[in-house]
C-alpha cells in the first residue's frame, strides 16, 4: 500500500524535506538536519506536521463511561476542555496504544498513533457498549505542533484567544490566522507549545501564516527525526519501541496515568495483580559513559549477562552523549546502576540515570 500524503505534503516536498513512510504515511523525516531541527525546538520554536496522528470522536450519553472502560486514566475526572494522557489496554494489560483524550462541549476527542490507527479503531468498535457513537475523523483532520519557548508569542500574533490563560494539557476552541482551530497546550517535545487541530482544507493556510509570523521568532519546520530525539530526551514512550502489547503501563513507568481505584476497566485485574506481586521489570533511562550510540535492540548487560535490550536510543543533541531506554529486571532498576550496552560487539559502559534526561531552563 502506498504511503498516504497529508494536506501539507506539497509544502514539505517544496521545502526539499527528506520524506519517509511512517506508519503508512508519507512524512518529512528532516528538512535540513535532525540535530539542527532538534536544537531549534529547544532554543526558539519549530513546527511539525503531525497530521498522520489519528482522531476519533465519541458522542452520546454513554461516551464517558465507554472511554473510562477502555482507557486506564480517569475520564470522569476530566474537566471541560481538559486533555488527558492515557492508554488503552487489552484484557491482559498489554498496551493497545497510548493516546490523548479531550473533553469538548458535545463530544470526546481521542488522538491516537498513526501506526495504530486501524488497529485502534477496530479495537474500540469491538469493545463498543452502551449508547455511544464513534466517528473516525482522521482523514479530514490536520494537526500542527508548534513547539518551543517562542510558541506562545508566535501563535498569539495570529489569534484573539488569550493563550496565557490556557494551562498545560488544556485546550480552547478558537481561531488562528482566521482558521477555526482547536488550540491545545500539549506536545511531545518537553517544551512549551501548542498542537493546532484544523480541517485539512485549512492546513496550508495555517502553516503559511505561522511561517510568515514566525520569522522574528526564528521559526523552522521540524521533521519526525527530531520529534523522536526530542521525546527521547524527555523519556516519553514511543509505541512500537518502548511500549506495545507485550508491555503493561506499570512497568513502562505509566503508573501515574493508571487509576486502579477508579472502578473497573479493561486490563485492571492483571494490573492489580502486577501491583500486588511487584513489578518484574521496569523501563529505565540510561546514559552512555564516554562515546557510543545505543540503538534499539542492542542487548543490555549487567555483570556480563544480558538482562534486557534497548527499546529506544540516540545521541542526545543537547547532552551530546548517548541516551536510551530499555526494560531491566526491577532489582537492577535503581538510579546509578552500572550497565553495559552491546553495540555490535563493542561493550559501551552505561549507567541508569534520573529522567527526563533533559530539563528545560525556563
Amino acid at each position, binding site marked *: 500500500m502506498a504511503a498516504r500524503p497529508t494536506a501539507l505534503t506539497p509544502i514539505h516536498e517544496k521545502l526539499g524535506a*527528506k520524506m519517509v513512510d511512517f506508519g503508512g504515511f508519507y512524512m518529512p523525516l528532516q528538512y535540513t*538536519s*535532525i*540535530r539542527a531541527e532538534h536544537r531549534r525546538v529547544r532554543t526558539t520554536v519549530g513546527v511539525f506536521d503531525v497530521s498522520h496522528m489519528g482522531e476519533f470522536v465519541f458522542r452520546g450519553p454513554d461516551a464517558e463511561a465507554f472511554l473510562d472502560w477502555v482507557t486506564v486514566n480517569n475520564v470522569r475526572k476530566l474537566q471541560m476542555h481538559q486533555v488527558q494522557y492515557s492508554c488503552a489496554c487489552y484484557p491482559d494489560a498489554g498496551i493497545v496504544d497510548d493516546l490523548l483524550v479531550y473533553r469538548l462541549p458535545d463530544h470526546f476527542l481521542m488522538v491516537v498513533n498513526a501506526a495504530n490507527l486501524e488497529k485502534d479503531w477496530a479495537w474500540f468498535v469491538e469493545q463498543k457498549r452502551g449508547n455511544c457513537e464513534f466517528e473516525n475523523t482522521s482523514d479530514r483532520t490536520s494537526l500542527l505542533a508548534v513547539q518551543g519557548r517562542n510558541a506562545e508569542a508566535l501563535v498569539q500574533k495570529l489569534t484573539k484567544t488569550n493563550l496565557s490563560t490556557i494551562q498545560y494539557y488544556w485546550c480552547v476552541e478558537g481561531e488562528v490566522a482566521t482558521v477555526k482551530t482547536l488550540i491545545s497546550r500539549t506536545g511531545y517535545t518537553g517544551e512549551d507549545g501548542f498542537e493546532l487541530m484544523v480541517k485539512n482544507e485549512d492546513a496550508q493556510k495555517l502553516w503559511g501564516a505561522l511561517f510568515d509570523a514566525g520569522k522574528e521568532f526564528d521559526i523552522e519546520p521540524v521533521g519526525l527525526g527530531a520529534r523522536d530525539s526530542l521525546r527521547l530526551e524527555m523519556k516519553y514512550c514511543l509505541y512500537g519501541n518502548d511500549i506495545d502489547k507485550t508491555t503493561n503501563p506499570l512497568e513502562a513507568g505509566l503508573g501515574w496515568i493508571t487509576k486502579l481505584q477508579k472502578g473497573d476497566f479493561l486490563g485492571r485485574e492483571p494490573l492489580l495483580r502486577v501491583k500486588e506481586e511487584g513489578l518484574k521489570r521496569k523501563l529505565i533511562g540510561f546514559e552512555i559513559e564516554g*562515546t557510543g*550510540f545505543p540503538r534499539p535492540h542492542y542487548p543490555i548487560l549487567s555483570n556480563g549477562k544480558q538482562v534486557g535490550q534497548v527499546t529506544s536510543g*540516540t*545521541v542526545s543533541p543537547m547532552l551530546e552523549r548517548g541516551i536510551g531506554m530499555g526494560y531491566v529486571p526491577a532489582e537492577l532498576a535503581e538510579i546509578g546502576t552500572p550497565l553495559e550496552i552491546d553495540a555490535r560487539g563493542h561493550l559501551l559502559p552505561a549507567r541508569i540515570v534520573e529522567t527526563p534526561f533533559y530539563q528545560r531552563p525556563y
Partner: protein
Amino acid sequence: MNFPSDLLYTKDHEWVKIENGLATVGITDYAQSELGDIVYLQLPAPPGRVEQGRAFGTIEAVKAVSDIYAPLSGTIEAVNEVLASTPELVNQDPYGKGWMVRIKPSILETEKQNLLDPEAYKALVG
C-alpha cells in the same frame, strides 16, 4: 548531487583521490545525504593495514550505523583527526574537510580497475 570529476568511486559510496602515490578517502555526497547527521566516526589509527572491499571503520549517523569499506589495499598513513570532534564536516564538506583517511596503496594499478569513474558512479546512484 555532486560527483567531482577528479575522483574515483566505489559501489559502497566511498571516493578516492590519488595524488603523489597516496590515496585520500572519504564518503560521497550521496552517502552523507542518505546517512543524515553523522555523530561519530570510528577510524583506525595509522599505520593500520586495510584491504580493498573490507570494512575498516564505522559511521554512526542519527538514523543508522554503517561500515566504511577500503577502496584500496594498503597502509593507513593519516587519519583526519578533526572528525573526532566535528564529525558534521563529513555532512558539510564530504569531498574536502570531511576526508577520512590517507592510504598508501600497495597494489594500486591492479585494484584501480575495480573502482568506478564519475560517470559510472553517477549512473549507480541514479
